[in-house]
């Protein structure tokens, strides 16, 4: 839609599709075949390394006390700079999926390279029951449920605590008073019924909601009675930045003593992550 000023806006309508289901009802065998193939292609698979996969396939499933899921550039950056930068972690698995926007579609059988968008699992060497899932790739709406179901389905749900770190722009935060950048970045929490620990930040106020992988994981934990908490960071910076990443520190340090957190971020990694912020093409560089 073009406005009075000439710019083109993508219009989002709450109206649902027209009454075109008559055609869908009359599917023939070929349509069904195509549909099945698309569904197969979009299936989500988790590729565990041999040692872990043995545990996942056993009757007791994978024993895990803490699972940290980081979604979004800041959350994933925090995990890279503050936790995974120490030597005590090893990669134990990754998610293979195909959708319109995931780049790894050309190589479905190899793990994403460092720096490439993807969804990768890490295990702490000193305490193998602590796992981290770092997710930086796009996951389509129809794949979220299955990814959450498969990740949590491969773990023993008794004694498991799930912590989800996620970030979103400040503009998506709704509040009755005007928010300027002074208060940002800040954290808001959302927890399942079985989660009883004290929280280091306020709860996410209505009418704010969350969507995407964090929501899928929380829904799954809620119905499986798994203790889970989400820390959503609202930031006014467009790209990943060190100040936003630091807001996750109190959330994680108070929750999980089993996860070793570096007091200072790894500068090399931090620099790599925040390089997009640098001015690239102005008159003076």
């Amino acid at each position, binding site marked *: 839609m073009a406005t009075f000023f000439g710019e083109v806006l993508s219009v989002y309508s709450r109206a*649902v599709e027209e009454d075109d289901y008559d055609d869908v009802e009359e599917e023939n065998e070929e349509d069904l075949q195509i549909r099945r193939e698309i569904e197969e292609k979009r299936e989500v698979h988790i590729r565990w390394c041999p040692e872990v996969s043995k545990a996942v396939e056993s009757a007791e499933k994978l024993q895990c006390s803490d699972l940290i899921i980081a979604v979004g550039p800041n959350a994933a950056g925090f995990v890279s700079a503050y936790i995974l930068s120490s030597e005590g972690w090893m990669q134990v698995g990754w998610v293979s999926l195909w959708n319109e926007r995931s780049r790894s579609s050309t190589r479905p059988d190899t793990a994403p390279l460092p720096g490439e968008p993807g969804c990768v699992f890490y295990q702490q060497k000193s305490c193998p029951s602590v796992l981290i899932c770092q997710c930086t790739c796009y996951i389509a709406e129809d794949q979220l449920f299955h990814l959450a179901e498969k990740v949590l389905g491969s773990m023993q749900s008794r004694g498991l605590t799930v912590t989800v770190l996620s970030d979103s722009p400040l503009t998506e935060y709704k509040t009755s008073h*005007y928010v300027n950048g002074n208060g940002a970045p800040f954290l808001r929490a*959302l927890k*399942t019924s079985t989660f009883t620990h004290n929280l280091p930040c306020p709860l996410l106020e209505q*009418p704010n*909601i*969350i*969507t*995407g992988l964090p929501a*899928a994981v929380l829904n799954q934990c809620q119905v499986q009675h798994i203790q889970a908490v989400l820390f959503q960071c609202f930031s006014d910076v467009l790209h990943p930045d060190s100040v936003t990443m630091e807001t996750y520190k109190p959330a994680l340090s108070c929750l999980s003593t089993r996860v070793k957190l570096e007091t200072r971020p790894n500068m090399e990694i931090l620099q790599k992550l925040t390089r997009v912020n640098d001015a690239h093409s102005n008159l003076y560089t």
Partner: protein
Amino acid sequence: MFVPVGERAPVFNGFTLITPAVSVGNVGQLAVDLIISTLDMVRAGHFHTDCLIPMAGNNPYSRGDQDAALLSTNAEVYCRTDLQLAVLQIRTPILPMKMKSFRKLLVSWIKASGFSRTVLLSSCHAHQRDDQQLLSSPLRYLLTPGLRTEGTEGTEGMLQRLGWREMERVSAFPGVTDSDTQRLYIPGGGITKALYNDCCSENISMVVLLLFCSEGDNVPDAFTLVNHLNDWLHLLDKPVQGCVPWRTPSSWRLLFGSGVPPLIF
């Protein structure tokens, strides 16, 4: 899949189920929000399915800080045993590829739970009305064959006494007189028509209530629909003067965005 909140699964045998169709203006969903909020319905469980887009938030019906911390999901079932009433609230759109499986899931759950009747609250694009429809009230109903055969004392007689009109069938080619294919046409109604057809063939008692409306601020439409529903089901007593005191849930705040910067004034 229905997942109860407590240890014991609730019994819905003989209950009336009210559920929205995700349709134009989200009128059905808003109306269901009003029912849950006003009747203080208790959450009985989650409707956990891969057919809906995931979403999570805190208690949408909280009245203060005490009851705010309650994780709510994209589809939940609420109930009031004394009223024999259950409500399935759906909060996100159905994935386009999963429309059929969602309908199947819903139909099998309705059958397995033993609801005595199901009320589907829905809406339809107002701009699609013909001249006759433009001149009449915007409310329409549809009944499955099981509810039609009850005679004048049954549901159909009751709805007609309220002055409601059945959704008209339209001809596939208006103006061409020799075409006798009259069909049901509910544009913008989401799964309404297909679910109604499923219920007809599966012999489920279903009443579809739908309102012609347009996109925009659909809160007034939700009040209209829920008031009509109340005229029929008498969920709340109607005061002698004024209208039924529906309570809007706390999640309806800030429908049009956050507060404005004070410096602009």
